[in-house]
């Protein structure tokens, strides 16, 4: 799907594995993917689980599963053993793929009946194969499954077709003008829709990407960036807070030309700051908006419009269109706030909550209700008003508030609301010692820094007349 010999000459660099310090050319990548795809021979279209890290072997597994015509769920290799086991048991994937040889997998999989360890000739590609071929079918169009919340191991997936993935990668690379000389670095995990879009756009255009698991505060990340002369950087709002503190000009990155931001709203002051930093070095800074439900990208603010449209999320990507729903009617008239509705070829086929759901076709018909409230200005640029759904961004990760509540409800009545960079957690139980324990437990399970969870003891949670938790009343408290 993502291979194209015309745009990807065999000797051009494709993926640099920073941990191995090794380049893989497009020719080598294609051969590796072919060999791995062979090991995924199956009597029917299969469901594969790929527990990924940012390394060449994980990328190769992802591409091999797609090339073999299977559906591949991209999951975080860092998920806890319990989350992995729960996901495996609820979806019963036909193949489990990974680049990490740990007993973690073996023990998680041994708890599931009916898996055989299989082997490939590749030194860093490990996999397990289900013994019995299941009766359930996987829809012919289904290609990629992404988790709706990367960290909680939620069994809810976004179902993406090959057309979704390709069309979005094409639109993005067109607006960002990605070409063969561009080189990205995996500053985000590639099981996350934004990280995946960086990988897909660079492969599709014959550009290259450095795969690393190092974070922005690690010397190895910046050494790799400088050594192989990366040209572009992708970040969520939290990444840009770090970048502001680190100071782009002091990092000594002469090859940096493009910075992109998505994954939540970045403060206007930071948008202006990075626009100025990039303009001064003759580069470009893009503010973007998207959702996993739209594969990744929905709108991009063109770099040249940024100063004039500060605070805007831009215009719909090529091939897509936006409108707001005001009193039940879709409109593109300026200055009317309503729920933003996106239509385009990258809108997911739908959600999956179970293996059975994988046989479903497209249930959305290309239209997505984003859950974000927004308005257009006179020239059609979108500006956000707020969020309509129950989720929050904490240090760049989307956390579903209901899931956090569910994890805590075993202890007693709990309500969670978003407040600033934190989750405000109201409990009708517990003392500071309990809260310290819950905080560490949540931090470990959700893989979010413990400072994100603010616990409050409350006599009684406020309720609405219908007896539901009154979340606006709690939000007003914070």
């Amino acid at each position, binding site marked *: 799907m993502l291979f194209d010999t015309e745009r990807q000459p065999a000797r051009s660099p494709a993926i640099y594995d920073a941990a191995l310090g090794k380049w893989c050319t497009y020719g080598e990548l294609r051969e590796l993917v072919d060999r791995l795809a062979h090991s995924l021979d199956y009597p029917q279209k299969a469901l594969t689980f790929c527990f990924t890290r940012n390394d060449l072997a994980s990328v190769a597994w992802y591409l091999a599963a797609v090339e073999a015509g299977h559906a591949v769920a991209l999951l975080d290799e860092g998920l806890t053993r319990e989350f992995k086991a729960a996901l495996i048991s609820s979806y019963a994937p036909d193949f489990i793929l990974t680049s990490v040889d740990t007993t973690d997998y073996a023990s998680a999989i041994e708890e599931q009946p009916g898996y055989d360890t299989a082997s490939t000739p590749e030194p860093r590609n490990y996999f397990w194969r289900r013994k019995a071929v299941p009766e359930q079918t996987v829809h012919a169009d289904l290609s990629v499954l992404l988790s709706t919340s990367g960290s909680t191991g939620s069994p809810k997936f976004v179902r993406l077709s090959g057309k979704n993935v390709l069309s979005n990668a094409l639109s993005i690379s067109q607006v960002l003008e990605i070409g063969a000389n561009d080189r990205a670095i995996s500053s985000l995990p590639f099981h996350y829709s934004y990280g995946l879009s960086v990988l897909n756009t660079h492969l599709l255009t014959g550009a290259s990407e450095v795969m690393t698991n190092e*974070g922005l505060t690690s010397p190895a990340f910046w050494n790799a960036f400088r050594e192989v002369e990366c040209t572009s950087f992708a970040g969520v709002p939290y990444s840009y807070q770090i970048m502001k503190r*680190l100071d782009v000009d002091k990092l000594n990155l002469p090859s940096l030309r493009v910075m992109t931001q998505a994954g939540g709203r970045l403060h206007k002051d930071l948008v202006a700051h990075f626009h100025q930093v990039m303009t001064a070095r003759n580069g470009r800074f893009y503010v973007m908006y998207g959702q996993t439900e739209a594969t990744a990208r929905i709108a991009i603010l063109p770099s040249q419009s940024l100063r004039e449209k500060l605070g805007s999320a831009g215009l719909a990507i090529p091939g897509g269109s936006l409108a707001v729903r005001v009193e039940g009617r879709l409109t593109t008239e300026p200055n009317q706030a309503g729920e933003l509705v996106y239509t385009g070829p990258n809108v997911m086929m739908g959600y999956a909550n179970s293996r059975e759901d994988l046989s479903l076709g497209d249930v959305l018909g290309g239209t997505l209700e984003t859950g974000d409230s927004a308005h257009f200005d006179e020239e059609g640029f979108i500006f956000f008003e707020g969020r309509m759904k129950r989720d929050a961004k904490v240090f760049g990760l989307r956390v579903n508030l209901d899931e956090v509540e569910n994890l805590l409800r075993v202890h007693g009545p709990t309500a969670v609301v978003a407040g600033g960079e934190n989750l405000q957690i109201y409990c009708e139980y517990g003392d500071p010692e309990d809260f310290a324990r819950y905080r560490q437990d949540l*931090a470990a399970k959700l893989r979010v820094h413990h*400072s994100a969870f603010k616990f409050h003891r409350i006599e009684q949670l406020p309720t609405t007349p219908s007896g539901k938790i009154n979340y606006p009343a709690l939000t007003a408290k914070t």
Partner: protein
Amino acid sequence: MPANTMSNLDTLKSTFVDVIGIDPATDFNSLVYGSTPGWDSVAHMALVAAIEGAFDIMLPTDDVIDMSSFAKAKEIVAKHGVALDA
């Protein structure tokens, strides 16, 4: 306890305890960015801010990135004129 009754080394240790959420009885020399649970990039930036606040110093980019272990943090803090007892 007011800061002046604590040694600078104790202050540095308690900063790590508070930010990373580790046991105060831990072997501090074993703390390493990226492998110590809880010391991720979010904790790292919080740690830098807390150390700057505790010792009233300002760390430049290179030091922020190089502070990859407790031992390194001691070196960096000392370089900025904070005396650490043995």
